[in-house]
């Protein structure tokens, strides 16, 4: 039996959301300011991005301390990791469909 085709995830259609999930996929936790600077967005935009991905359970947030100041740590959930992996597979399948497949790159994570 063949596996069902991967579907593009509409929640990851936005470049900022996709970039944020890509960052969170390769680390366990990222601090709010670091993530904000990395994505080049404002505090309010990042808060909305986080809220938009926390609501479907793709990311979790936790209050903590870094360098003596209070901050927020953001992490991808297992569901979020799976969503990104599936989305990337769907993107590759879409490109392969027209015969110009992107080179494979590891996006595996357990």
């Amino acid at each position, binding site marked *: 039996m063949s596996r069902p*085709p*991967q*579907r*593009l995830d509409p929640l990851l*259609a936005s*470049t900022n959301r*996709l*970039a944020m999930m*890509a*960052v969170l996929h*390769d*680390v*366990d*936790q*990222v*601090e709010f*300011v*670091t*993530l904000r600077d*990395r994505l080049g967005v404002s505090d309010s935009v990042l808060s909305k991005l986080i809220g938009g991905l926390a609501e479907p359970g793709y990311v979790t947030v936790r209050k903590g301390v*870094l*360098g003596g100041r209070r901050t927020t*740590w953001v992490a991808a959930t297992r569901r979020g990791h799976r969503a*990104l992996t599936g*989305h*990337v597979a*769907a*993107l*590759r*399948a*879409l*490109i392969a*469909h*027209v015969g*110009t497949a*992107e080179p494979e*790159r*590891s*996006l*595996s*994570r*357990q």
Partner: protein
Amino acid sequence: MESSGERPDRSSVDAARAALHTVRAEQERTAAQIQVPAGYDEMIALAIGVWIGVEGWRGPSDRWSVVATGLFAVVLAWQVRRFRERNGAWVGGWRGGRFAGVVAATAVVLIGGLILGRVAGSHGHPWLAVAIGAVAGLCWFGLSRLWMRIYRAELGATR
């Protein structure tokens, strides 16, 4: 972008390529930005060496063993904090796949070192426990560096 059974149009493919480029770019930036603080591996390796070495000198009381275990925990927590402050991020050891062998080897080194150190001490060879601790510390150092090399390779870093 659509992923239905119909043949995708050119704009969908271009958008998919751009999205994949975004993911790849973030992977490469992560690989380049995550840096191990100076002395991180060395300090933990030293703490492991002391922890295991003390097992050979514990004598009838567990007091020094408890002190050495506490010292190791303090050093580990300190280095984790330095890593978080340096990177604004934390990268845990367990990531499955190619990392599994390195994590398993690290567990064997730590648990095996502690057991061998204690056995050496109980047989009247405390200096052997110190040597075992030194070897275990060096092994941890090498395994930690290997882990980071695999991490960078997984993310497609060029360095």
